[in-house]
């Protein structure tokens, strides 16, 4: 795998944010806030942690990623394009009539492992994948990204119980904990906290990180947290991260920027890119 410095990845995150907003703007639809909160996690997974590429995607030995919070699909599609699964220009068809770029993850798009979009499905599927890996003595790792609002779905806790029961240290869940869902603050809609204690009580190894810190994400994701236990990384994130007027603003759950807002957002990202050491664009 190509080796990137932290600054390389910081720059990539900004580029991903730019490309994500472009895709959403072009499609006239998308989950803006949640895509922006998840981008640094996806960046570290795909560019530093996981053994996944177009070349090995048909290999049974590859690592697996299932995006359980499927609505943040724009971020995933942008990252997969950057990995070379398809030309970035294909994303121009996102949500168009007869496009294979559906508004939630689908295996019609190269690089997508499983079709998701209904919440509470990723963790059970990944638990099955991880059990399969253990049965086969394979060394691949399985990752899933959950939303904090998504944790109200009971199926997550069925899988949390099973993953600990089977000691699945080849399974890592990441909670994109941006504290907002469509109705408002997650703690007001249905409080899932204290998350760390809940997962610990279910028998998981838990690490809480700044979900926008490349170094902390790398430390938490590069290896299983603890032998014999599934791991959960609670990534404290900001919905709408990177765009001042979108940050921590629930209105941007699936709002599409106007022309003026889009220009302002691009200007913020261009300025940030210029500030990252080694920026080339």
């Amino acid at each position, binding site marked *: 795998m190509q080796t990137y410095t932290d600054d390389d990845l910081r720059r990539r995150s900004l580029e991903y944010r730019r490309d994500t907003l472009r895709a959403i703007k072009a499609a006239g639809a998308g989950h803006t806030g949640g895509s922006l909160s998840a981008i640094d996690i996806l960046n570290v997974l795909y560019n530093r942690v996981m053994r996944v590429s177009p070349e090995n995607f048909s290999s049974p030995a590859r690592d697996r990623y299932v995006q359980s919070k499927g609505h943040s699909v724009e971020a995933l599609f942008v990252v997969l394009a950057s990995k070379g699964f398809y030309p970035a220009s294909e994303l121009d068809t996102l949500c168009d009539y007869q496009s294979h770029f559906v508004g939630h993850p689908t295996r019609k798009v190269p690089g997508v492992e499983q079709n998701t979009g209904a919440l509470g499905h990723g963790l059970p599927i990944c638990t099955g994948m991880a059990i399969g890996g253990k*049965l086969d003595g394979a060394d691949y790792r399985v990752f899933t990204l959950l939303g904090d609002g998504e944790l109200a779905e009971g199926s997550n806790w*069925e899988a949390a119980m099973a993953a600990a029961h089977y000691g699945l240290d080849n399974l890592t869940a990441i909670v994109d904990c941006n504290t907002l869902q469509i109705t408002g603050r997650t703690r007001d809609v249905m409080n899932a906290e204290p998350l760390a204690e809940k997962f610990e009580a279910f028998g998981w190894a838990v690490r809480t990180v700044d979900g926008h810190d490349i170094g902390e994400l790398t430390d938490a994701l590069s290896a299983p947290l603890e032998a014999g236990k599934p791991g959960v990384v609670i990534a404290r994130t900001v919905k709408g991260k990177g765009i001042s007027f979108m940050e921590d603003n629930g209105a941007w759950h699936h709002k599409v920027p106007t022309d003026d807002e889009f220009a302002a957002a691009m200007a913020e990202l261009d300025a940030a890119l210029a500030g990252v050491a080694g920026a080339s664009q």
Partner: protein
Amino acid sequence: MSAPAPSMYSADAQAVAEKLGLSLGRPNLEVFAETLQELAAGDPNVVAVTSDSRGSGKLGPYGKALPRQIVEVGIAEQNLVGIAAGLASVGKTTFAVSPACFLAARSLEQIKNDIAYSDNPVKLIGISAGVSYGALGTTHHSLHDFAALRAINNLIVAAPADNIEARASIRSAAALPAPVYLRFGKAPLYDLPGDADFVFGKARLVRAGRDAAFVATGEAVIHALLAAEHLAATAGLDCRVLSVPTVKPLDTKAVQDAAADCAAIVTVEEHMVHGGLGEACAALLAQSGRVPKFRIVGIPDEYTVTGSQADIFRHYGMTMEGLATTMRTLLGD
């Protein structure tokens, strides 16, 4: 263990079965468990996933013989199907085994998205299906599974009628890289006559005839056959009987041929009259332009009567006597 007396059948019906030379086999559920164990013993890639259901699925011996090829998820049917999807996606030949009443309802969204939409070739096994659980009541009946699962793209839906179809359907499903739902009941079944070659999507001609036709699925087929024999003996009627194990995709040719050849069709299924085999045939025939006299027999849209499976079949006319009467009434006799 000797099979209990088949109280599904009146003394008259048993006499007809004897005259036909039918032999009483075992419950399909036992055949399922035995066949799956044979498959798994020969292929370490086969995995059964259970939701505290290995006992009701008759998989106790399987679990003892092949402990590394059974994954227990506890009483958690959503997780059962999600985990099965994950196992199938990494290459396991996966059988998810749970009572049909829970499997086809509690985990319906997992079936729709994780199995059918994601094209994970899990074999969904609905055990103690239909009204097998009898007096345990509506919570334990699966009279909606055909309807719910027929409405999902990329899923074969099948209900074997006897031990022959059960064995063949399990082996066919294991070999097929596609999602399949199979349902099995608990009552011992007569082995049916007729060509035993099994292919998903093909009906089996159990009895030839051109006056009228019974088109039936699953464990109701035997009653249709007995009714046809009864009508031949008592009314001189020559009824065709089709066993249609695959409710979806339907064998459209066999059903259309029956409609072309016969003056009346009675469909029979251990399912609500809505959304199952009967309505599938009705939709096919209405759109093909040849609609004979037609009646759907199943469980009506009401709170199902309390009783054993045999009581319920009798109450709703799904017996030799009931079906013969329905056919004669339909024909205007």
